[in-house]
């Protein structure tokens, strides 16, 4: 049971942090309500529009880049944990992987896909 005590402490701390923030803001934060502030908020989109709203395709492009480079991080973590065991072989393998990803990044960058307005 004793090994789970850390998890319990972590849970309590997390709950206390989240709860504490909510309580603190409601106690000491300034409360100025105006119309724009009371609207539901989502990523810069107006809340009341026609449901046939057309999103800019750029959103999807950026999301795709995010996923690709996020996956890179997913692979890098286990490698970092096992860095010593994998040794030089693992290091070279990982560098090849990162080089290929870097080429992808260079390509995306040079083709101007990272610029919002072009």
């Amino acid at each position: 049971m004793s090994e789970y005590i850390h998890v319990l402490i972590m849970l309590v701390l997390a709950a206390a942090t989240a709860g504490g923030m909510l309580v603190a803001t409601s106690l000491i934060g300034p409360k100025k309500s105006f119309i724009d502030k009371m609207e539901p908020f989502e990523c810069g989109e107006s809340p009341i529009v026609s449901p046939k709203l057309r999103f800019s395709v750029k959103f999807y492009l950026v999301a795709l880049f995010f996923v690709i480079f996020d996956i890179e991080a997913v692979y890098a973590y286990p490698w970092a944990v096992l860095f010593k065991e994998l040794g030089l072989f693992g290091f070279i393998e990982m560098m090849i992987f990162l080089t290929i990803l870097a080429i992808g990044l260079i390509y995306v960058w040079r083709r101007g896909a990272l610029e919002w307005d072009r």
Partner: protein
Amino acid sequence: MEQVMSTINLSAIYPEIILTCFSLLILLMQSFSTPRFKEYYGYVSLVGVLAALAFVVMEPSSFFAQTVVYSFNDMWVVDNYARFFKLIFLLGTGLTILISMKYLEDEAMQYGEYFALILFATIGMMIMASAGELITLFLGLELMSLSLYVLAGYTRVRMVSNEAALKYFILGSFATGFLLYGIALIYGSTGTTSIRAVAASVGKYGLYSPGLVMGMAMLVVAFGFKAALVPFHMWTPDVYEGAPAPITAFMSAGPKAAAFAAFARVFMEGLPALQMEWTWLIWIMAALTMTIGNVIALVQDNIKRMLAYSSIAHAGYVLVAFLAAGELGISSVLYYLLTYTFMNIGAFAIITALSGRGEPRVFVRDYQGLGFQHPFAAVAMSLFLFSLAGIPPTGGFMGKFYIFSAAVKEGYIGLAVIGVVNSVVSVYYYLRVTVAMYMEEPSSVREAEAAAPIFSPALVIAIFISAYGVLSLGLFPSSYVAIVKQSFLALQ
């Protein structure tokens, strides 16, 4: 840890590594492009294909040594079967690059991505041919398919091209889902994704799980879609019509062969114990594929669409040989796919030359009188169409001969009869183009003048290579048969 590394034999994937390096190089060239680079993308990718070709034959051991090399914990197999398919893919890729260069210049779409994607698709196919394990197979299939979705919509200013890409993407993703589900069910029933281990497990415990049969059926759907077999062929005509002509040539040769490569490896090596279950299924699919492909091709006016249906029919012939299995059956699958690569890409090379900017001239009537205006193009086109129809002395004839004799030998006489009848039916629509070329006048002189085909040196080289392949496969089949038989032995 030592053990894990000792199973990695890097020389087994040299061809794939080389192609990857070249496609990355092209992406970098495109990133730092100067207008000067535009013309070199094609040549750079050709060099990559030739280098990969050399390594396929030489590494990790010579083609003629007939050794089987396993690597990456048996996830990767290099045997002569895989090598032969890789030769087909690289051949198709090389020919496609040759017919693409001038086409892209005319369409003002000389971007490096085109060639990088073609190389990526080729790597995917090569992974499919060498996969000793179902997840590796899936990886290759996805790499191939995703590249092809983009390539189908490459001429993005054209509506049909966009439509083709979207249809192909949505239906193709669905088919990939079937593949994954099938793999999951097979894994659930046997506890492994390694093709050889699946065979061992099924052989040991027998047919104990309905999930296994379900998984097999799902794999049939997925491979059926990728190889365009009836009833999973619906996407083919639209995609082949909408995609740029060189990409249609590419799609109809390599990826179809890749689907058959994986299909045969999984079913012959992994699921031979289920042969009773899949024999009747594939019998029906083969008969339907041949018949529906040929009958609908009869009424097509668009020549790209006609060849799309013809490619469905040809997949049906290959399926007959697949069903016959055994040495003769699988050898004729390999022989036929090689022949088909030559004759189909050859025919599409002529279509590419004639189609004109924006591809307005892709109808049978646009071929009227071609025999008098451009005798060279007409002769070459006739040769490829004769081969597709299976008329001697072309490779198409020998290929069909081997397929049907394999079917008869294995007792599939009904299927062989259906195949021969279909073959006769197909002569009508292939000859219709030849008749238009030699026996009809162009509908108007002005139109004929506008329709001057564009023959670049690269395209002419591609046509010559294809014509040489078609003729030598038809006239001197014995040396090819020897190679094909060696490739088959590896699968045992």
